[in-house]
Each structure stands twice: as C-alpha cells, then as structure tokens.
C-alpha cells in the first residue's frame, strides 16, 4: 500500500477531487498547509516598508491506495493540478505498513 501526498495550489482542490472521484478513490484527507519552493513567497508593502512573506498558502491532499494503482493515481493528480505556472506544487508517495478501519477493525486493502 502507498500513501500519496500532494501539496498543491488551493484553488485546484475541486478539480483534483473530481479527478480522484472519477478514478474511483473512495476517501481522502485535505488539510491546509503553507510553505515555499524555489519561487519563494511574495512581497507586501505597509507605509513603504516592504515585507517578504515566505510562506505561501497550499493544500495538502493525502490518499491511501494499493501499490499497483499508485503510479496512475499520481499522474491523475498531477494532470489535474498542473497550471504550468510556478508554484504548482509536488506529489510523492511513500510505502505504508498497515491500515486499519477504526469502525470495523478491517485491515489492509479491505480497509481502504
């Protein structure tokens, strides 16, 4: 099993959710995140004093999938999240040892 994590632009959330739904993903977790990549943040001006705001608001999406679906799912997220402009984000996957559904106690693929 794999945990796929995507850090993307907040306004792309709906599109990614749609794409994941069409792919057959049953559930996901979304949280607000902030950070920066190579482009860094932006500048704000208050009475002439400039402040560099490093941390840019992002959305973190987490999805658990079976190993064989992982690569395809990553492609689905990437194509839904892409704007071809700087700051589109990153997607990665990591192996997961075990998953348990809290309500029933089911484990592994049954718990997804």
């Amino acid at each position, binding site marked *: 099993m794999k945990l796929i994590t995507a850090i993307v632009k907040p306004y792309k959330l709906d599109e990614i959710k749609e794409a994941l739904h069409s792919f057959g993903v049953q559930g996901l977790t979304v949280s607000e995140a902030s950070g920066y990549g190579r482009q860094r943040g932006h500048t704000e001006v208050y*009475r002439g004093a400039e402040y560099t705001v490093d941390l840019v608001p992002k959305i973190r999406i987490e999805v658990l999938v079976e190993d064989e679906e992982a690569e395809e799912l990553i492609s689905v997220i990437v194509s839904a999240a892409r704007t071809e402009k700087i700051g589109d984000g990153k997607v990665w996957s990591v192996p997961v040892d075990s998953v348990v559904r809290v309500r029933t106690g089911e484990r592994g693929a049954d718990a997804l």
Partner: protein
Amino acid sequence: MASAITTLAADAPTLSAANTGFMLICSALVMLMTPGLAFFYGGMVRVKSSLNMLMMSFISLGIVTILWVLYGFSLAFGTDTGSLIGWNSDYVGLSGIGLTELWDGYTIPVYVFAVFQLMFAVITPALISGALADRVKFSAWALFSALWVTVVYFPVAHWVWGAGGWLFELGVIDFAGGTAVHINAGAAALGVILVIGKRVGFKKDPMRPHSLPLVMLGAGLLWFGWFGFNAGSWLGNDDGVGAVMFVNTQVATAAAMLAWLGYEKLRHGSFTTLGAASGAVAGLVAITPAGGSVSPLGAIAVGAIAGVLCAMAVGLKYKFGYDDSLDVVGVHLVGGIAGSLLVGFFATGGVQSDAKGLFYGGGLEQLGKQAIGVFSVLAYSLVVSAIMAFLLDKTIGMRVAEDVEVSGIDQVEHAETAYDFSGAGGGISARTTTAPASAAASKKVDA
C-alpha cells in the same frame, strides 16, 4: 480655538439652545474619536498585542476624564497667571459652575465648553500610545498619561487657547488643535521612544498589521468624529465659520488621502489600504489648525501637501533608527507642523481671523507666529516627555520584560487574548481549559 465671536449686537450674549445642542453633539463626536483611534492603532499591531493597543487609548477616557474634572479644566481654562497656566477654584471638581452660566462671551454654558474640551484632553495622550506599541507596561503607561496631561497638555492648552495664554496672545492660529493636540502628542511620542528604545526585532522581524479592516474602521470613525473636533471649535454656528470648517475638513482629508495614494503608487507600485487610511488621518491632522483660516481650495492644497509630506515622513524611522511603531511622529507631528505652518501661507484673512498668509498678501508675519507656536510646543513637549519617561523608567520601569514582549503583551498585562485560534470548533480547548469556578459550582448542584 476661536477668539471671541464678533457680535454686531451690543447686547451681552444669551444662551443659545441651538448652539448648545450643536456643541453637545460635537462633544459626543469628539468622544467617538478615541475608540476610533483605538481601532486605527489596534488593527496596525500584531495579534499578540492588539488588546493592549486598544486599551492604551481606551484608558484615557477613564484617567483624563477624572483629572479634567478634578483640576484639568481649571489649569487649562481658569484665570491666567503669567501667561503660562490658569486657575479658577470654581472649576475644581466642576463644582462652582451655574447651569446657565455662559462661557466667556459665547452663547453656550460653561459645562458644555468644559465637556467639549475634555474630549480633546482625552484623545491627545491616546495619540502618543501608537508610538509605544507592544512594549510598555500598562501601569507605567497609565501613570505616564496622568502625569503627561497634568504637566504638558493642560499648560499647553492654556498657552494656545486660554485667555491670556502666551501663544494665544501672540496671535498664533491653532483653530482646533494642530499645535496643542497633534504637535504636542507627536513630539511627546518622539521624546518617549528616544528614551525607551525599539521593539525587540525592529527592522528584522515582520511587524505587519494584523487587521487592516479594523484600521479602516478606526480611520472612518476618526474622520466622522473629526467633524465635531473641527466644526465645533468655533463654539457655535451663528456666522457660518463652523460650516466652512466642516467643508474644509472634508476636502482636505479627501485631498490628503488621494495624495498619499498617488505618492505610494509612484514610489511603491500599489494603492494600499493602510495608505488610504493614513492619508485621511494626515489630512485631518493638517486641516485641524488651518481649517478656520483657509478657503476650500486652500484646504485642498493643505491636505495634498500634508498627504505627500507624511507619506514621505513615515520612512524616516527606518533611516534614523528610532522605533515609532505606528508613525505618530510621521503622521501627527509632521502633519501638525505642516498644517500649522501652511496657515502662514494660505490664510485668507476672511474667515476665523483677519490674519493673512503669504499667498494672500500678508507677508511673513503670520508664518513667523505660526513657527513660534510650532517649535515652542514641540520643544517643551519633547523635552518634558522624555524626562518623564526617563524618571518612570528608572523607578517603576517603562518596559515589559523581553520574553513578555516576544510572546505578546496581551496575555501577561491583561490576562486576555484578542482572538480564539483554538480551531476544530473549539473542542480541544474546551476540554483542556479549566472551567470558571461558578460554572464548576453549578455543575455540582445539577449532579
């Protein structure tokens, strides 16, 4: 403040119900400026010290009101001694004043004049607090403001507006308080910050305003209240001078806002919200001394010049390295100086007084008088405020501990925080916070 109204009638003035009502409303409008200022300043500081900023203005409504009734009105507007200070035992505790006793040749009761002037005395020390954001002990601030109004504001108000006061007698025009209020507060702010020093992280940490909507709300309330401040300063409306002042207040403020925004767009590339609010306040400050002596076109010039000068001046703190947190010096001191000196150029001689400015054939005389008013009040307030801050710092201490300043002054000084950021519907914090004693007690009864 207005000199005696020129009345054509030979009769002694009688109480005017219209003027009395008008002045009571003006007094209430000026009162609203202090909470307005609290929001203007409160929005500009960081979340962690926003309540303290609101309180530093709000407390003035408590402290100065009481001192004004006890002895302030007497010191500022009592019978003159040596052109420096007033005294009238009838005014002590406002106890010896008749209900229908009229104020010095005007058509309004002494009580109405006293309460109108009280509101000026309340907002002036509150103006200073913007320079001291985030770092001053609340108790030290309360004591400072009580001492400051006693030693600085009450005497200066007497010099400028009191019959017999030396600047009043000299012919300095300070219609509604450019000198007595704004230069006075701005110079005091500079004096205090030179003594107490910078905030931790000044020029290194970002100190962005936590709520620009609050700043705009505050600026709007200030603008609204300022009509009372300015239009009320003629102490009546029998001859239209108050109405001209109302018009001038509006147009100068509009011009200053546009000028600040224009400067900002050229210099920094954006029309900012903070710039609009600051420009409006700069215009209000500048027209305060000048509005009774200039035409509406003159008021546009005064506002526009002050807007640009103040927008330029707020950068000085980074250049010279003093931490005037919310630009009290840049906006109030510079704006007040600009407005007071511009009287010497734009006074038409046809409104509040006969004095003409340089552009209306008056020569340099009025400008010279204005300069004396500006620099004497500036110097007195700067020096005395700095000495006062130094003495308080050496005795009870002016500043909070460094760790308190970094973690936020609100929680330590006021046992409160402005906003609940616990999130998750408050569920986590509700379970980990100790319930108030009374709630715990009532639960026991229920069980």
